[in-house]
């Protein structure tokens, strides 16, 4: 038992950290607004084999979830404007489709419709604005549909590449991946996978936001000393540490359980990690903005970019209240159940 990363994991993390620090300074994030997609960054990730990481080894991947969350953590730290959680989660379902090779080498981007379609329309698919292949639960079928990426997104809180996608048009190709209960089950697993990756991304985001806030409060002086020397500020920052460490550990545990072949426990923990990370990222970025004072809310400062993504990225799934209820069913059995 060890809560610290292994030497291998440290090496992986520092490789990703170096990559994102070099290739994704905040100017890249800003330049990618409003679409929320940096094609060049995606190409560089593709050159490293990242888009295929979640696929099995013989399909060009073979990364463990433990490694994937390190990747996503580092991507979250820099707010990387690439739909990694969406693509990696969706890619797992595309193994036996004609698009597998493209998805693995990153020439095709995949995205998951997180909620069931309505009349064939998947609403606000994360990554949907730039995705070539969309995986969706369309009535009782789980389908993968090749279509044209709209490359435009409605104005949104996180400047995320969201888009509505119609999944009954088969002109580009449409594969039914599963039907009936199997479709529902695999779609649920897809959601949990996306939740795990998003939890890791939000953890990185929150970690970096806290670091920024600490750095700012050490630098900014008011009343003759750094504001970080005032208890009013210190206590508010110190409170953020436990929750942050908590979501990091919980996410890692969810990933570990998945790697160890315990999907039920892994799924439950992924939902927990997602819900906790959603809350922690919001609280952390709220305080981080707040302790930046008047500057924090100007668009010139970077912290507001963290604030908006902390809210916009997880909320594409819907009201967290619904997830809590689903988690309760998982933990305590359905209402009136045995």
């Amino acid at each position, binding site marked *: 038992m060890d809560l610290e990363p292994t030497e291998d994991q440290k090496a992986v993390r520092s490789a990703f950290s170096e990559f994102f620090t070099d290739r994704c300074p905040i100017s890249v994030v800003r330049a990618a607004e409003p679409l929320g997609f940096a094609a060049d960054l995606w190409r560089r990730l593709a050159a490293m084999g990242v888009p295929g990481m979640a696929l099995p080894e013989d399909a060009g991947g073979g990364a463990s979830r433990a490694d994937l969350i390190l990747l996503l953590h580092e991507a979250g730290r820099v707010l990387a404007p690439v739909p990694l959680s969406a693509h990696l989660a969706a890619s797992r379902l595309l193994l036996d489709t004609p698009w597998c090779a493209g998805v693995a080498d990153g020439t095709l981007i995949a995205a998951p419709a997180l909620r069931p379609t309505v009349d064939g329309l998947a609403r606000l698919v994360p990554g949907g604005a730039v995705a070539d292949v969309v995986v969706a639960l369309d009535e009782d079928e789980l389908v993968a549909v090749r279509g044209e990426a709209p490359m435009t997104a409605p104005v949104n809180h996180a400047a995320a590449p969201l888009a509505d996608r119609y999944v009954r048009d088969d002109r580009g190709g449409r594969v039914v991946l599963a039907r009936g209960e199997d479709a529902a089950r695999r779609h649920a697993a897809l959601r949990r996978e996306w939740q795990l990756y998003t939890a890791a991304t939000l953890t990185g985001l929150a970690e970096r936001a806290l670091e920024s806030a600490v750095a700012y409060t050490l630098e900014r002086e008011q009343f003759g000393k750094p504001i970080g020397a005032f208890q009013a500020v210190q206590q508010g920052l110190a409170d953020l540490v436990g929750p942050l460490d908590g979501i990091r550990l919980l996410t890692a545990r969810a990933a570990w359980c998945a790697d160890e072949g315990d999907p039920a426990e892994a799924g439950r923990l992924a939902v927990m990690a997602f819900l906790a990370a959603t809350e922690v990222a919001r609280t952390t970025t709220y305080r981080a903005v707040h302790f930046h004072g008047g500057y924090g809310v*100007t668009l010139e400062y970077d912290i507001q970019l963290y604030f908006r993504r902390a809210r916009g990225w997880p909320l594409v799934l819907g009201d967290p209240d619904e997830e809590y209820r689903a988690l309760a069913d998982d933990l305590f059995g359905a209402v009136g159940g045995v």
Partner: protein
Amino acid sequence: MDFRPKESVEEFRRWIRGFVAEHLTEDMIERARRTGTFHDWGFHRALAATGVIAEGMAGPGRAGGRDPLELYVFFDELGLADAPFYGLANTMLVAGVVEQIGSAFHLAEVLPRFHRGEAIAALGYSEPGSGSDVAAAATRAERVPGDPEDEPVWLVNGQKMFTTLVHEAGYVILLTRTDPDVAKHRGLTMFLVPTDLPGISFQAVETMGGDRTNITYFADVRVPDRWRLGEVHGGWDVMKVALAYERGVFGNMNQGVSLLRRFTRWATETGAMDDTAVRKRLARIAIDNEITALLALRPALIASAGGLPTTEGSIAKLYASEAYNRAAEACLDMAGPEGLLGEPGDAWFVDHAARDAPVTTIYGGTSEIQRNNIAEHRLGLPRSR
């Protein structure tokens, strides 16, 4: 205690509602939202034409003027209607200070322009190095040596942050340091400066909440002494008048009311209103709104009775802004993905509130500063900064 609204105040409320219904257009609201400039010259001049700016606020030693309670209601109604009122609030505030402190020159030169709606004012207090600690202002004003027969001139150098509307304003009220060698509160002097003096420039600053504000630069600006407001080195006294004048009357603390109204309408249309968890959270917001309204009313009532609301303003501001944040975060959750969208026609007001609410716990004194005030002046705890 008596909660029956004053008839004169209600009459004034009906009047401003009628005015708004007649003059405020959807275009004005949308333009303000899009540009972040919460001022509209057409609307402002139409209001000025009614005489409401000239009437000003009643106060000790002032003949005529509106009851502070009426002005509270005035801004409350403008806020609820989404009218762009920042120029109006700034100008009425500065006009009030000028009336009390200004020289004959100010009274003759500036006041009528404010009253007629020809010019508006911007506030030049904060600086890059002084936000919560306003008295640490470092913008220098030095008296320029010259012919003693001539009017003295002050050479101003420095920069002011968060000078909202300076890009539309004719004048900026400017807190400067005239003596760097004494305790910080004692070396300050206030000016009212025309924005077209050579050496003044500004740069737009956009905010997360959608407002546009500005940094204003002062580079060797020669300010004739007649623009000085109050005594030399008496800037902090002017500041206190400005703060007291403003306290709890200007501005709108009921953002939660608009948010709840809009959200309820949206949730009814989408069916979200049938979810008991949603209903419960909206009921909580409604309670916060009731409490906010009562706390916000209190300083206005105190001012209306001739008193000086001190901690009551802090209490209202702290509660209102924290409650607005709770409401905004709850609405963001409840709306899910739809609340992330930012264009009219969407549930844009959710996205807007989520971006706007955090700003309110910062400007006009951070929540920490408000708590300091309350701890010290209401609870009698020792000064802690």
